[in-house]
């Protein structure tokens, strides 16, 4: 075993040395006129694409901090990075931690080039907040695992080549112990993908139906019954992904073939997220809209706007307060977990204020609606904010139990075989 954070001379490489090294490499190799695929292959082979990954798997075994420094040098040079964004990075993190060498060999390279898109198959119609109550079944027929059931809220499934799927393989043990994690080939007869239309008219997600879908045993991750633990790795990376979506949407600026192809890739991947700003309430538009409509002179409208501003600014300052304390080396307190709950309330209050400002126009949508339908899109998208990524109610449980140390609610579903736990008939 070699120490992955030391250079050839045995000394730990400093950030400046790393920066110099990558810059030199970029000066010699970066070429915006390559195809996106050609460039990425070059970058991956050099180890600068994912420097924080292990040396044997396309990286250089650097710390996360040094990895960020490398990315920074790429940005400075305007060089396009590997496809380390989107749901595929959840797959990568999970495979790196729990996968076999065959999994790493087969999946990681094409994942980084951007050739393979991935999807996450966890949520089901019958288990939303209670993910561990899922009922998609995996049965071993002596040759393959056979999958039957239904998944939902799957982003990008319609163009995904592979999926991470969590299914129940043992019904005779408590719920958390009977799940197994698989990597599934989406391109097979037993997998049907249907777009799921939301109340705001967009279809950003899919429903997936498994009817005797096949998974060869070597595509099980970790071991049978260990699926929950593996899924936790995937979910731990999900929050970071959500943070990354916003910054990634911009892409790199420049001219050349590689930029054009990256632009097309971003357009495809970002498509499902285009209504997300509206989902958060578009606080930024309130005062401008109130002035444009003359409603600014109405004190009841000003009250509604003020309520949004108070909640939004106080939430923003809370985030900064947490970061500032962290920068001083203080232990993070439970206030770090409040952002999501605050965001839901901001979104609701903002939708209320936008309604007051729009007046009768709030009854119209699309081209007839205010701002060509942008305002109506806010009104019919906000309800997702308090559900997606963990409902407000689950957030409150987490905050009160883990943050405030309050006692847990007694449970009746974890101390018996899953077979005996009351559950939905759907799915």
């Amino acid at each position, binding site marked *: 075993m070699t120490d992955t954070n030391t250079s050839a001379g045995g000394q730990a490489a400093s950030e400046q040395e790393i920066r110099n090294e990558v810059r030199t490499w970029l000066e010699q190799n970066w070429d915006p006129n390559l195809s996106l695929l050609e460039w990425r292959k070059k970058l991956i082979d050099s180890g600068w694409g994912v420097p924080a990954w292990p040396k044997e798997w396309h990286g250089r075994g650097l710390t996360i901090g040094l990895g960020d420094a490398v990315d920074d040098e790429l940005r400075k040079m305007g060089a396009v990075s590997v496809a380390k964004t989107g749901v595929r990075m959840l797959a990568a993190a999970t495979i790196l931690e729990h996968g076999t060498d065959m999994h790493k060999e087969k999946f990681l390279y094409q994942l980084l080039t951007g050739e393979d898109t991935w999807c996450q198959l966890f949520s089901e119609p019958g288990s939303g907040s209670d993910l561990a109550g899922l009922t998609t079944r995996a049965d071993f027929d002596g040759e393959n695992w056979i999958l039957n059931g239904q998944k939902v809220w799957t982003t990008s499934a319609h163009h995904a080549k592979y999926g991470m799927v969590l299914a129940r393989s043992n019904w005779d043990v408590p719920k958390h112990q009977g799940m197994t994690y698989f990597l599934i080939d989406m391109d097979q007869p037993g997998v049907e993908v249907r777009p799921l239309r939301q109340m705001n008219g967009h279809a950003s997600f899919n429903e997936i139906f498994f009817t005797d879908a096949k998974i060869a045993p070597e595509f099980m991750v970790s071991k049978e019954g260990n699926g929950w633990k593996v899924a936790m790795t995937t979910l731990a990376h999900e929050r970071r992904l959500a943070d990354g979506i916003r910054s990634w949407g911009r892409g790199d600026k420049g001219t050349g073939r590689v930029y054009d192809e990256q632009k097309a890739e971003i357009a495809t991947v970002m498509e499902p997220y285009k209504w997300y700003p509206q989902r958060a309430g578009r606080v930024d538009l309130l005062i401008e809209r109130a002035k444009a409509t003359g409603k600014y002179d109405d004190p009841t409208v000003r009250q509604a706007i003020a309520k949004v501003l108070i909640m939004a600014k106080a939430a923003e300052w809370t985030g900064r307060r947490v970061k500032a*304390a962290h920068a001083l080396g203080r232990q993070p307190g439970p206030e770090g977990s409040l952002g999501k709950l605050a965001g839901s309330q901001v979104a609701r209050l903002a939708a209320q204020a936008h309604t007051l400002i729009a007046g009768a126009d709030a009854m119209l949508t699309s081209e007839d609606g205010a701002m060509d339908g942008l305002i109506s899109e806010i009104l019919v998208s906000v309800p997702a904010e308090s559900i997606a990524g963990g409902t407000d109610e689950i957030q409150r449980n987490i905050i009160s139990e883990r943050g405030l140390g309050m*006692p847990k609610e007694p449970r009746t579903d974890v101390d018996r075989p899953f077979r005996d736990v009351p559950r939905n008939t759907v799915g």
Partner: protein
Amino acid sequence: MQYTFSDEQEEFRLIVRRFMDDKSPTTEVRELMATDQGYDKTVWKQLSQELGLPGIHIPEAYGGQGFGFIELCIVMEEMGRALLCAPFFSATALAATAIMSAGTEEQKLTLLPDIASGDTLAALAYNESSGHWDPASTALTATPTDDGYVLNGAKSFVVDGHVADLLIAVARTPGTSGVYGLSLFSLPGNSGGVKRRLLQSLDPTRKLAQIEFDNAPATLLGESDAGGTTLPHILDLAAVALASESVGGAQKMLESSIEYAQLRMQFGRLIGSFQAIKHKCADMFLEVELAKSAAYYAAAAAAEQAPDFPAAASLAKACASDTYMKAAQECIQIHGGIGFTWENDTHLYFKRAKSSEVFLGDPNYHRDQLVLRWEN
């Protein structure tokens, strides 16, 4: 912008908190609130001599400790948490701030050292029986005489006005209206022509007085007719100080709620294990943390003279007032029947929350101010 406290400020907070824990248990609060005087002279002396709190934000040149507005707000927060009965808000946060903002150099040198030492209790006589918080509503008149001014009219809701040695009063030149012709004046609390009456306040821990002026001789504080300019800033600083105090009280209500929810058994389990209770606590926690952030931001904006300070002050006041009131209500609710008894301490905080909700402008007033000030 300073978003969190320095290690020194955190250390200072702990010192103040220890003092409050020691000197202001609710048994003490209950004794003092039943008196007309409303505070304990021995504790006030200790607080002045041992910690120098009355001069906390007064510059050293005027006999103070020379700390800033952030430290003042830390003191307010800790006093709010302990519900300390003492004339700190009136003398230091209100009156001294007014003198620092409006007084001449000579007046600061004369008036501030005795406030900083705790020897002089000062009060800001601003509001009147109309109950409006806008400076333009001032009706008290100040008529020039050969050797100064005489005040005529009345002030109300003057915090600790009944015990103040020094009154800072806002008055207008006769015949003026709006924010024009407003000035600040100083006069001893026991001057001839000054009649004071202790009002029966809903919040017995915060004493309010009505003061009548009948040709009461007074000295102009700072420049004549400058009130329209100096008052909004003085009131904004006062609002942030009160918001800080409210945040301390709200935090106490949250802690009290969580503590009780983990003691009280019903239906064979702790009530804190019911989502109906724990979700309430999670919401309280969210609101209290948001209110803290708002108050801390506003205090930092004041200290750094940030252009968005006026908006931040109104934001903090509206947010903290609502949060304290709601936290006190929920604390009573979580305690159930016992929360409505006199013996339980929650009502002491509830009443402070109520008086603080209204004092210096209620949440509706400040929300409106917030929007109007947003881009200016």
